[in-house]
């Protein structure tokens, strides 16, 4: 074998190893696209509902979107398990419980502090909690996800401080857009 052949083989080996590793996690990108799309539709809709002073109807928008998101997440989780059984998949259980704990924490705060009287506070709390969830999630899976979480958190704080009337629209376009964009990036580079 000539050195050039050995070099070509080593390059091909590295490429396949990387593709296999990423492709087995490839559906992770679809989770982000799914929830990014839900944010895009949900928060854009919320912006216009609030503009029209019809806040009492917000939950009629979010309820079907959340059901769609949960069903989609379950479907993607099943498809992901069909491709590769990874030991790192053992992390998904604790990560799921962490998200559940965050949701319970938010629920308790919303109830105890009576945040439900102000939809804007509830939205801010949920967006910040999800940002925290992404930061933590990324620490276990891939640092890039933590960066997205940090971006969403800073975006939410910036909007609520300086442009509160555009909070929903900003989270929809920039937050949802960031999730969709980075999800597509993961899919493209993983498969």
């Amino acid at each position, binding site marked *: 074998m000539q050195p050039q052949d*050995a070099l070509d083989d080593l390059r091909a080996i590295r490429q396949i*190893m990387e593709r*296999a590793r990423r*492709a*087995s996690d490839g559906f992770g990108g679809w989770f982000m696209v799914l929830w990014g799309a839900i944010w895009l539709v949900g928060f854009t809709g919320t912006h216009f509902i609030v503009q029209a002073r019809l806040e009492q109807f917000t939950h009629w928008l979010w309820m079907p979107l959340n059901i769609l998101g949960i069903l989609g997440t379950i479907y993607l989780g099943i498809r992901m398990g069909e491709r*590769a059984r990874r030991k790192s998949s053992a992390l998904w259980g604790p990560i799921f419980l962490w998200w559940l704990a965050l949701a319970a924490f938010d629920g308790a705060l919303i109830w105890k502090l009576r945040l439900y009287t102000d939809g804007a506070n509830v939205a801010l709390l949920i967006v910040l909690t999800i940002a925290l969830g992404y930061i933590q999630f990324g620490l276990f899976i891939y640092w890039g996800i933590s960066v997205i979480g940090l971006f969403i958190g800073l975006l939410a704080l910036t909007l609520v401080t300086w442009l509160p009337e555009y909070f929903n629209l900003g989270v929809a376009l920039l937050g949802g857009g960031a999730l969709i964009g980075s999800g597509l990036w993961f899919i493209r580079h993983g498969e």
Partner: protein
Amino acid sequence: MADLDPVIHQPTRLRIMAALVGLDEGDKADFGFLRDLLGLTDGNLSAHLQRLEEAGYVQIEKTFVGRRPKTWVCATAEGRAAFAAYVDALESILYPK
């Protein structure tokens, strides 16, 4: 020049081993996942997996999901060692001592 393992040296088997070793130790890849990743036909992949299994480099587990058969493949410790030795041999061609 270092000896190159003839089982792994075959280009398709080299790619199969690279994909399996790319996953963490103990991780298993679905047959269809491997086939799509490497752009192989079912028959081609089966034949090469059988050769790798005979060499003790991969472990094949056949299960059922409902009524659908499912095949999981993983690199054995021996397969990982053979693959690492093969990569070392390639590197020694590039950087002779």
